[in-house]
């Protein structure tokens, strides 16, 4: 790896680091000012995680077949887990208040 490649690679990494930390600070400040909003908090967490996976873990530089073998499967599992919500709401309504 020549010095130019090394410098270019790390400058992207530094930029991603700054963006991830900025989002973390925004999350906290927003929660203090407006109260925690689950959709916004989750969206920022997914963005942070995606940046970390693509640039820190370099998944973006691997073969697309590796990405296709790992990511859709994981997302599918997380979608399937959403089946629990209806039951948790049912449980809430069964509670004596």
């Amino acid at each position, binding site marked *: 790896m020549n010095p130019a490649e*090394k410098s270019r690679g790390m400058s992207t990494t530094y930029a991603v680091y700054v963006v991830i930390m900025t989002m973390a600070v925004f999350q906290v400040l927003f929660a203090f000012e407006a109260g925690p909003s689950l959709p916004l908090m989750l969206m920022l*967490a997914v963005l942070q995680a995606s940046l970390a996976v693509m640039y820190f873990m370099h998944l973006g530089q691997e073969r697309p077949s590796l990405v296709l073998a790992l990511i859709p499967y994981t997302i599918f599992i997380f979608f399937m887990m959403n089946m629990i*919500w209806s039951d948790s709401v049912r449980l*809430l309504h069964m509670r004596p208040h």
Partner: protein
Amino acid sequence: MSHANVAVESHAAGVMEERPFAIPSSKLVMWLFIISDAVTFGAILFAYGYVRNASADWPTPFEAPSIWNALLMTFILVTSSLTVLLSLRAAQTDDRRGAFNWMLVTAAGGTLFAILHLREWMSLIREGVRLFQNPWGAPLFGATFFSITGLHMAHVLAGVIALVVVALSYRAGRHTAKHIEIVSLYWHFVDVVWMFVVPLLYLMNMKH
């Protein structure tokens, strides 16, 4: 060509088969471990969501000092992800001393993270939070909080041990940049999990 030659050639062809996804097998195994571990963390975070949603009196005990402490822990963990990348970059350019030092800086970051987390735990325990009781409301708050953060902290401590072992082996010449890359994948994963723990466990349970 004899049957024996055919058998040897076909065996050699099998041995020389292209590596899956053009990455070393050890790296593929680490990716598969990360995916399975991500699903484990996903399952306990969903279980926490289930219990929280089903409880009418879920406590929201975290005040500003706890939230700033969580942000400081985020800063330390994300920065340690950066330092492990600096270690990998140094290893790829044969800077053994630099790679070793950055690995130790990363391990120190992980240790500091664990100390801050234990401080947070002790503060909650002093306030009366236990696994199945707390002074504020739904008794399962303690079980979900300590289980999720405890599993994450176990990953951090395992990562610190792995970082130190690989750093020492790398300095001794037994390990290469490939091994640093694999342990760095694990370390980034610990960081990624924390990105979900902070908003779901701390910010959503913030006193307001």
